[in-house]
């Protein structure tokens, strides 16, 4: 029997599922872990460790092992993606109006229209310094970090490992960033709906995942109006503006959820133009992109993860090789 538990955290829906006698206990342990991580890594909570790091820019700060690990991973992915993944875009994100939680923006809107001219150039993310011996971090003055691009994947990874210590077979999803460990005992793969970014109540396809990770980034989910402009939360670090991309969403399937999370964003921001560049050294990674007309485009082997439940035209539409 697969047991599951849903709750809201990190401004999104979290779903845990596990099989086995200890599944319930494991899910509650994972839930507590996720809620603790939210308190620690949210940029919207003044008491969070991340807020403290941002306040300490220009000075060394002793940080937890978890924050240290996340920042080091961020730097690794920043280099891997040629700078497209960049957690230091927080000032640009605020400038675009995302200066409070999305739940708050959805109910109250953005505070005011930001007419300020372009922000002064900010330090590059790779100017961050680590003192591993004393577990300290130095972010340059005027740098602000937003871990939104990686924290969810990292938390899902850790929560799934925790849940796995209670249950051989489990899955953890936070807002559609999903890690499955083991295959369900009924012998089938895990089924995952691929939402239509234009209408999330509709699905475009159904994926079957034996185990491993799935993550999706979309420019349609976290949107708001800033004056007359429609804004979204995915900042292109090359322009400092919400990314002007030719895709609405990108879903990545690969063994590692943090990689899936980061590359879904990088591919969405980079779009068709940067696709080959980004995937050059990632043979284990498959992706599915949805264009504004709802057509799917994908990497060479993405069909292996989709059900051919409709017509063949579905799977042969616009495949990119």
């Amino acid at each position, binding site marked *: 029997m697969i047991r599951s538990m849903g709750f809201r955290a990190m401004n999104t829906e979290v779903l845990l599922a596990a099989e086995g006698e200890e599944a319930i206990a494991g899910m509650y342990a994972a839930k507590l872990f996720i809620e603790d991580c939210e308190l620690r890594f949210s940029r919207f909570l003044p008491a969070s460790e991340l807020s403290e790091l941002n306040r300490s820019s220009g000075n060394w700060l002793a940080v937890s092992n978890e924050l240290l690990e996340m920042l080091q991973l961020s730097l690794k992915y920043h280099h891997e993606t040629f700078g497209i993944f960049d957690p230091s875009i927080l000032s640009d994100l605020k400038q675009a109006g995302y200066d409070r939680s999305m739940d708050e923006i959805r109910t109250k809107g953005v505070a005011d229209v930001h007419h300020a001219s372009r922000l002064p150039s900010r330090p590059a993310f790779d100017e961050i310094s680590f003192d591993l011996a004393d577990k300290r971090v130095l972010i340059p003055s005027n740098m602000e970090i937003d871990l939104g691009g990686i924290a969810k994947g990292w938390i899902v990874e850790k929560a799934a490992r925790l849940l796995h210590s209670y249950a051989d077979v489990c899955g953890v999803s936070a807002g559609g960033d999903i890690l499955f460990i083991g295959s369900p005992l*009924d012998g089938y793969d895990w089924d995952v709906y691929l939402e239509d970014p234009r209408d999330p109540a509709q699905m475009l396809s159904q994926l079957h995942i034996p185990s491993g990770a799935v993550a999706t980034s979309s420019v349609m989910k976290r949107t708001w109006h800033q004056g007359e402009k429609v804004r979204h939360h995915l900042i292109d670090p090359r322009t400092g503006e919400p990314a002007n991309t030719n895709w609405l969403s990108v879903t990545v399937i690969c063994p590692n959820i943090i990689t899936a999370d980061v590359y879904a964003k990088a591919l969405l921001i980079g779009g068709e133009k940067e696709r080959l560049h980004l995937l050059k050294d990632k043979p284990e990674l498959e992706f599915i992109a949805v264009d504004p007309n709802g057509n799917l485009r994908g990497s060479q082997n993405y069909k292996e993860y989709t059900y051919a439940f409709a017509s063949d035209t579905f799977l042969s539409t616009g495949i990119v090789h």
Partner: protein
Amino acid sequence: MKLLKLGIRFWITLTSLLSFASGWIMLAHAPKPSQAEYSSASVTTLEPLPPLSDFNAGGNNFQNQPSFDIQSQPRARLGFNSFFSTGGS
């Protein structure tokens, strides 16, 4: 009386023939399954999640916490019965 019976028979015969003919025409003009165009928007929508139900955790401290169970059942591979979805957040 005889004329009335004859009229009724004629009416029943006529309406039966007309119904049969109109059904035939409708079926003949309906798109065949192989010709139906796929539209992503018409694909089956998500089934509602199972309702919340209490569970018996067998002596742990979580008995009063909300949760719900998914009963183990054979899953048709095209059954659209997953409870995981991905679409960004």
